[in-house]
């Protein structure tokens, strides 16, 4: 028994020491990621006046560079494709913890998907995984049961299998980040794809029963956090290649605090009925994004004055 226990302890110690070699893989993972926005937040490098948060609509439709140029306010886009309000809340909290508090937050909304109880929008854990070398990230992953508690001790439990692919990530044409964090569609969608794009004239009816109440609750907390930190929150109702979704806006307004401002795109603007303004039914082309961003700029300026 004694011999067994001694060998077991030696083996355990050796294992514990040798698996620490994986630190190099963990360290390397963050270096090789293409999108470094989250890491910049953690390192306190996003000290801006205006921050844009949202999912793909925020990333594609709102051009942070244009806002900065025309308002003179330093602007950065922290929208992540497919991300939900939980993720936006996490981004905001992390931002406030490590950086100077922004003056304004522009939150891009997603129509019926905003509070939907489905997986169309999710918490982007995949964006956190390459950054497990940071304790705050590891803690978040552990709290959300994405990493075992034992990952605090064992690096092998932190590392992702994909991180053993030692290639530096490259963005595809459609996912290139500009220097302001936005991801506009700089490349036009092929005509072939666009042929199937038809302006949808149906009037949507918002069904409250499809909501995830937790998402509504988090959105309210998101607003409270902005109020606590004296941040002006502007929520953006995005255009789609369809008639204005009045039904969602009506519901969304009910969740707003009086301090929160709501921007609705110019529903009468014919640009939003032109196929050239859209990349697909939900996202604007670069030309369309410029029009929407100009409208947002006017909204920001008007109220600021």
């Amino acid at each position: 028994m004694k011999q067994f226990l001694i060998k077991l302890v030696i083996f355990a110690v050796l294992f514990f020491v040798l698996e620490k070699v994986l630190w190099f893989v963990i360290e390397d993972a963050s270096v090789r990621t293409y999108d470094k926005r989250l890491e910049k937040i953690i390192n306190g490098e996003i000290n801006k006046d205006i921050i844009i948060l949202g999912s793909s609509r925020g990333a594609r439709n709102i051009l942070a560079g244009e806002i900065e140029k025309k308002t003179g306010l330093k602007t950065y886009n922290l929208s992540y494709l497919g991300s939900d309000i939980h993720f936006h809340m996490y981004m905001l909290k992390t931002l406030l913890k490590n950086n100077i508090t922004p003056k304004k937050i522009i939150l891009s909304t997603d129509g019926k998907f905003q509070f939907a109880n489905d997986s169309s929008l999710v918490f982007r854990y995949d964006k956190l995984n390459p950054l497990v070398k940071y304790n705050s990230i590891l803690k978040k992953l552990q709290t959300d049961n994405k990493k075992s508690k034992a990952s605090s001790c064992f690096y092998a439990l932190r590392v992702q299998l994909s991180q053993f692919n030692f290639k530096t990530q490259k963005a595809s044409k459609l996912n290139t980040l500009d220097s302001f964090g936005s991801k506009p569609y700089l490349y036009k969608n092929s005509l072939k794809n666009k042929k199937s794009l038809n302006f949808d004239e149906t009037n949507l009816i918002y069904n409250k029963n499809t909501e995830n109440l937790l998402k509504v609750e988090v959105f309210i907390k998101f607003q409270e956090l902005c109020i606590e930190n004296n941040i002006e929150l502007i929520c953006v109702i995005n255009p789609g290649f369809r008639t204005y979704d009045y039904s969602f806006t009506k519901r969304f307004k009910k969740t707003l605090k009086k301090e929160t401002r709501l921007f609705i795109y110019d529903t009468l603007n014919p640009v939003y009925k032109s196929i050239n303004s859209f990349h697909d039914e939900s996202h604007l082309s670069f030309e369309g994004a410029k029009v929407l961003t100009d409208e947002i700029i006017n909204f920001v300026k008007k109220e600021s004055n």
Partner: protein
Amino acid sequence: MFFNSLDFAIFLPIVFVLYWFITQKQLKLQNALIVLASYTFYGWWDWRFLSLIVFSSLIDFTIGLLLKKEEHQTKRKLLLWLSICINLGFLGFFKYYNFFVDNFVQAFSFFGSEIQSNTLNIILPVGISFYTFQTLSYTIDVYKGKLKPTRDLTAFLAFVSFFPQLVAGPIERATNLLPQFYKKRKFHYSKAVNGCKQILWGLFKKVVIADSCATYANIIFNNHEDFSGSNLVLGAIFFTFQIYGDFSGYSDIAIGTSRLFGFDLKQNFAFPYFSRDIAEFWRRWHISLSTWFRDYLYIPLGGSKGGTLMKVRNTFIIFIVSGFWHGANWTFIAWGFLNALYFLPLLLTNKNRVNTNVVAENSFLPSINELFKMALTFSLTVFAWIFFRAESISHAFSYIDAMLNESIFKIPEVRPKYILILLVLFMVIEWLGRRNYFAIETLFAKNPQFIKWGFYILLGITILVFSNGEEQEFIYFQF
């Protein structure tokens, strides 16, 4: 509690220390600790179902004692049937009630009379199929006079609930396991080291092989309409390795853990994918269940002693019942039926016991003939697993239909390189260790210590990396 969980990683050392350092002087106390640990292990999942195990154990314990006293054959038979009815009654209710109700309703509606379906929202108690068969083997063996009934209640409770094999086997015979609870266990260094190695290999099979294959098998099976025939073949192969890694991995961990406590359990898997015919496959796959059915169903039915018709009937019965044991779904019955079809030609031509030795026993590589036979058996097995994995019979047929067309010759789009490399490495290690109890038992045995330990550390790191902190349930828990 899962074997691949942090809870178990804490639970096991605590029980080990209490077992060998606190209770080792008194056998009764040591057995009581096993009972307590086993009930904790099971109750971690759902404590309410502990009452079922306790009740089942007490019934069979009492019936065992009554069988000893009773000399009248009719009354003895009655006692045996009482045990069978109670045990199979529980199993039938929890596992098959809804299946039978649904099928009766469907059958009636087929003949034009609509009746109300009264299915219940029943939770299947984990491991019920395993411990039910284990206790049944005790009563049947006592009835047949193969085993003396025990008067030691603690030992009996420990035998039924022994935590390493409680929820997914191996299904131990009372004749093998129960006597081990009567004797004082001694700690053997080599046995414990072997146990650790087997646990490590079991975890590797489960976490690295099974769970990796499961990701792709699930995607392909759940969306089979979107994939070409070659992808569907790959999906079936992934499931083939998933089920093997999952279940044999569980058995390895169970056997290895038992060894740490001084117990010897029977081998449950003996490298089945190197089998040269289906009969050999069934001697190597889930051995504890196959032999259970052989001894308590096939032989009492007359086995292969009768005429051709009897042989055919018994073969179909044993394979279909074995399939049905896995779950209340026609897919399992179809899987059993298909295996019976595979097996029958061998039985009828008396070739079912041709390959009883280890493949390529005295050589490093198999002969071309052996390789061909192995490939054929493996292919038949892969095909049969489609029924096992499918959600329904129509799903299975739709999968096969989409698989068997010209697209089977296309290069598959799903090519997870790292899994394919892992599977090749895994099969190489399994091949090298095919003469042993488990694959890595003697691997690197003749090499210096640092090579052996380096290999174990590499295995350990791989397991942790693949586990990624998330616990995956073992497939056989649902049975």
